[in-house]
């Protein structure tokens, strides 16, 4: 089943995390427009009270001031070098934020988290198990050849090919076949209905590459020597392994609204958070996503540029990895969450720029579902306000006093250290015997993919985002047997709700079933939600125009960046 994607890991400061994003979709063609109207509560200009303090607040910015004109080039920092820019292996911040500008998907995930047509001008859903896509005409690949339905078929099919071993095989798990059914029409047939499949086509799984290039480059496709050949506003320029990757403006781009304003974007790979912040301040780098929270204050005060926050689908959670130990009893998990000073964590670990989480998904992930429905679902959820005394009593009833819990941590970013300390404190407060196991950042990343690396660990931290605007992306990964269900949690009611949400055709039914799964998850707490945080982006004083949003993983955000007036 499912595994959803894995995701991630920690945040920004290091290599890590992979997460997928998703969008909510409605069943048919017209839906996209409707979605655009249902925006999310967290829009531009919304002030969020800073947790823990009443004075300050952070603001979300929907769009930074528009660019005054073109710019020759700008330099952007990434926290790690991609190992490939083949979309099939792009499942992490670094490759996805590059590819978002180079390769396009059948649908487009917008910064306001809606979807709109991309390389498919429209789609229909004639039966519960089929999706039919109309391919846009007049689109050219960077090598000048014209996009055809065959390119779409070849590109999507790679996700089914075990030889390719695509990181995106999960969204295609219910796919039976992908075929050209007209001169510019592609039909996907499913083995069983799947309410998320189409949404994924706005992210990496829907990427379209030239079939000829795929064939010609073979195993070298997407590596530093060959690069890629897609249809986006920028084309692959060069990749100096270990150093930088350069994109060039593509003059033959089809969408006049998103023609790139910059002639060139140079991505540099800087894994050390302090190195990145220094480079922002010296002007050696013009900007970057995922600013280390410890530098928020410093960068806000800086003359070198401006720090912005945008809409996100990320939740920081403590994953319960071992259900055979003291945390196997749901009461102990509830007690632990109640004993964690989450407001304190937001203040100390996230620079105040975050909100205590009420569930495992950010409210943004529900956009597309009517507000009243979402509010109702949230209201029904159990909440776990900070109450160490009550928590201790609850844990005592479970009879786990004095038992050991191991919490994994990594020394290379301050957030993880702070959160881990707070969780250890909470464990102690409820009578457990916490032990912090500090491991290297790379090994930490391995926790998310390697069962052997997780052995002996009871709890570890993740910053988990969804690759589509749909809570099912998160909750599906907690189904019995799912790859990312690290603790092997299993709950028949929960599984049934997920299955129901997946096969349902009516958006209201999908939301209801998903809500039911969420209710169970929040009662049972296979993961302990800590806080939600916005996307952060720093823009140096030379450039402006970007729309800060988690959609930067799939939306051509760099095309909008130009010179500041």
């Amino acid at each position, binding site marked *: 089943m499912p595994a959803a994607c*894995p995701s991630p890991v920690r945040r920004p400061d290091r290599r890590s995390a992979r997460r997928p994003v998703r969008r909510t979709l409605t069943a048919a063609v017209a839906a996209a427009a409707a979605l655009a109207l249902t925006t999310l509560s967290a829009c531009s200009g919304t002030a969020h009270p800073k947790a823990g303090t009443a004075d300050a607040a952070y603001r979300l910015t929907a769009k930074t001031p528009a660019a005054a004109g073109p710019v020759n080039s700008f330099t952007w920092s990434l926290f790690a070098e991609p190992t490939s820019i083949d979309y099939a292996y792009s*499942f992490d911040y670094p490759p996805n934020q590059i590819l978002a500008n180079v390769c396009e998907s059948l649908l487009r995930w917008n910064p306001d988290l809606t979807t709109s047509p991309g390389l498919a001008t429209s789609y229909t859903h004639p039966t519960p198990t089929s999706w039919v896509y109309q391919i846009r005409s007049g689109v050219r690949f960077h090598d000048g050849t014209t996009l055809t339905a065959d390119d779409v078929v070849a590109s999507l099919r790679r996700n089914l090919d075990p*030889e390719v071993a695509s990181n995106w*095989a*999960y969204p295609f798990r219910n796919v039976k076949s992908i075929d050209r059914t007209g001169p510019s029409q592609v039909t996907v047939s499913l083995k069983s209905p799947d309410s998320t499949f189409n949404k994924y086509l706005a992210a990496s799984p829907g990427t379209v590459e030239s079939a000829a290039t795929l064939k010609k480059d073979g195993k070298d496709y997407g590596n530093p020597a060959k690069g890629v050949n897609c249809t986006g506003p920028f084309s692959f320029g060069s990749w100096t392994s270990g150093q930088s990757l350069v994109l060039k403006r593509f003059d033959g781009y089809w969408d006049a609204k998103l023609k790139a304003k910059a002639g060139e974007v140079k991505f540099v790979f800087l894994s050390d958070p302090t*190195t990145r912040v220094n480079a922002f301040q010296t002007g050696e780098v013009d900007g970057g996503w995922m600013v280390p929270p410890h530098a928020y204050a410093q960068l806000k005060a800086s003359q070198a540029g401006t720090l912005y926050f945008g809409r996100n689908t990320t939740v920081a959670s403590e994953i319960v990895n071992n259900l055979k130990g003291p945390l196997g009893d749901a009461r102990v998990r509830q007690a632990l969450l109640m004993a964690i000073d989450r407001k304190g964590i937001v203040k100390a670990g996230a620079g105040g720029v975050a909100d205590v989480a009420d569930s495992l998904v950010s409210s943004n992930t529900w956009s597309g579902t009517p507000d009243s429905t979402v509010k109702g679902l949230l209201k029904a959820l159990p909440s776990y306000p900070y109450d160490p005394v009550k928590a201790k009593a609850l844990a005592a009833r479970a009879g786990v006093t004095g038992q050991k819990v191991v919490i994994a941590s990594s020394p290379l970013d301050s957030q993880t250290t702070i959160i881990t300390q707070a969780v250890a404190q909470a464990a102690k407060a409820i009578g457990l015997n916490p032990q912090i196991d500090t491991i290297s950042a*790379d*090994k930490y990343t391995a926790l998310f*993919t390697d069962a052997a690396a997780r052995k002996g660990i009871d709890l570890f931290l993740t910053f988990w985002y969804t690759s589509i605007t749909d809570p099912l992306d998160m909750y599906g990964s907690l189904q019995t047997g799912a790859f990312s269900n690290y603790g092997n949690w299993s709950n028949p009611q929960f599984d049934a709700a997920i299955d129901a949400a997946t096969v349902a055709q009516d958006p209201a039914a999908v939301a209801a079933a998903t809500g039911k799964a969420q209710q169970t998850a929040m009662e049972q707490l296979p993961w302990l939600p800590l806080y939600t945080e916005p996307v952060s982006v720093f823009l140096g004083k030379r450039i402006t125009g970007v729309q800060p949003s988690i959609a930067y993983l799939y939306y051509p955000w760099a095309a909008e960046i130009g010179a500041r007036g």
Partner: protein
Amino acid sequence: MTAALATTAVDGARRAGRFGALAVSVLRRLLTMAVTLLVTSFVVFSSLYLAPGDPVSFLVRGRSPSPQEIAAIREQYGFNDPFPERYWHWLQGVLQGDLGRSYLFHQSVDQVLWSRLPASMLLVGTAALMIAVVGVGAGIVGALRRGTRTDTAVLLMVTVGAAVPSFVAAIMLRSVLGVRLGWFPTIGNGTGLLDRMHHVVLPAIALSVTFMALVTRVTRSAMLDELRREHVEVALSRGMSKSSVVRRHVLRNALGPIVTVSGLLVSGMLVSTAIVETAFGMSGVGSLLVQAVNEMDFQVVQAIVLLVVAAFVVVNTLVDLVYPLIDPRVAAAAGSAR
């Protein structure tokens, strides 16, 4: 080992003339090197093979593949083959100049290595130069001015330098000379020779600071040992100029230990570059090795380890070869021993 090899070299020289001796000696060393590399490769290959964790779990990156898919991946990468077979395949490839293919970077290993090596070589080369010039220089000055303020300053530098780990040096250099004063770039490798040199200065200082201190200390005490020797005192009392005595007797004799220590330090530096590379956003072999180990990219780890071992063996072979040249006593002793 040094003495034994030197003995052989001298022995050969007497029988077959200088050229023959050199040839025999070089041949012998190449053979030793090949055997060392072979043994190392086997040890590394088997340790990776026995290490916990499964490379497949890295390849599937978080999805839950079907058993068929896992089987296909295992087949494709040869993970099912028995260990000796995998090792043999790899060895055959290496002998034909094929280091294999990195499954992490989707590129041949030599492409991956070539993209990182130049930066590391420049970094290590510059650091080595600094060690030789500054480290040896300061040691000589300290010894010649023993007990003076200059010597105290050198000793202080040594103490501080040896105590500063390279990551601390990197942070300090970066924030003061890079961010605050803006004299040096804080990130990247640079392009073109001058720009590259400009980029490499701070990382090279950070990398070499501890090693410089060690070399200064060794140089200073080796010089002092020599200065105390009878023949030096005799030479000086006979009225020979101090500078010529220092050059011809003291420095020349002290050079042995200095060169030996420097050789070891420099060849070891190739793997200690990771931290400095990260701090200055450079890309080199050090950070590549760390990444490859963690992601179980066997082929890349294997290639880097071989490279480092080769560098080690080569540098130390060179040290052994020049040893008799700089210290005739070694050659003489070896000769009379026969």
